């Protein structure tokens, strides 16, 4: 198992997390994924990369520096995305019961290990 796969499994093991994936930030392609069932991984990867790119440009214009954690909250769950260097994005999807604090820490740890 690769280091990335191991990192994604750790993220997926957090309570409430439905799955995690590693995404190529420039083109929004899935590189690796873990337990992403019942969702269109390719579409999520593309949208997450697009959102992250847009937010990165906005943050730069606002003088906020680089994004470290992005959190899209919906009515019934959350999408978390953490950049791993300039080229990669670690993405996780969780339901309403997700331990977001722990998921965030695991994502940051995964990003550090992957970058």
């Amino acid at each position, binding site marked *: 198992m690769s280091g990335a796969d191991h990192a994604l499994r750790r993220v997926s093991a957090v309570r409430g997390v439905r799955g995690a994936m590693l995404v190529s930030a420039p*083109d*929004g*392609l899935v590189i690796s994924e873990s337990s992403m069932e*019942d*969702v*269109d991984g*390719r*579409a*999520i990867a*593309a*949208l*997450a990369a*697009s*959102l992250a*790119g*847009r*937010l990165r*440009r*906005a*943050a730069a*214009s*606002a*003088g*906020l*520096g*680089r*994004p*470290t*954690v*992005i*959190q*899209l*909250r*919906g*009515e*019934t*769950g*959350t*999408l978390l995305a953490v950049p791993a260097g300039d080229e990669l994005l670690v993405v996780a*999807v969780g339901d309403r019961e997700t331990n977001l604090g722990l998921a965030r820490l695991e994502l940051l740890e995964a990003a550090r290990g992957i970058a």
Partner: protein
Amino acid sequence: MNDDVRALTSELARDPGSLVFLDLAEVLRRRGQLDAALTVAASGLARYPALADAHALHARILAERGDGDGAFDGWMNALQLEPAHQAAHRGLGFLYYRAGDLARALRHLEFAAQAAPEDAGLRAAIERVRVAAAPAPAEALAGGTAAGEVVAEAAPAPTSRAIPFAIDSGSGTSSESELFAGLDGARDGLLLLDQHGLRLGGALRNEDGADVSDAVAAHLAGVSREAARAARLLGLGEWQSLGVECEDGNAHLVAPTAETVLLTVRDVSVPAGRLGLVAERAAQAARRWLERVA
């Protein structure tokens, strides 16, 4: 590559003479791939030089790349071909607004609104320009009102140099100043924009004190649509907020209405949870303000 882009690219490859280049360039523009969007739009424009939509889209992309001169020429070309072209009037309205020519801005925005009477962002923009132009209403409304006359006006192009890319919030209108009145960050750190990336109110400054509102707003055009699409695809229901923790500050996005987005920015000392509460209070203020100006 996004499925939409892939499908549209394939369609264009199969039929290079089709008008699908408009859709492809627009999708690329919304994704922020401005170089690719410009290439597609320019290629289509070369094939269809008499198509107003092609000029208008080309101009919009140029505007987002910061080429105000090119955008002005493009939108004027669109109006030469189609004097009532809504997007061209809208674009020129914002260019004139940024250049400080409120009279011309108002005329173009009002023409644009005739074709889109339900566009709340446009209505708010017109209200803002009207209030700003109030000291000289006769001058602002002088001249012809037919679309053809607007096209024919010998207006100097608002050059890139002449465009104050960020409009000083200190000179905001009284209506706009009411937007976040009484809230922490009312003059720096709260920014309301429409789904097209037009600043409706509030302001944002960088660490040097420069107003970066318009630049940030432009980058966030379409963010609400993308967030909604991602939430839907994931079965998360309606999107409620988008939080961004950054190296030097935190940002929080919410949608006070379906057509607007509110950006709240604070330094890193403000925890994300508290930032969400600040954003929700500001969103309530924004909803009240939008109802008043509608």
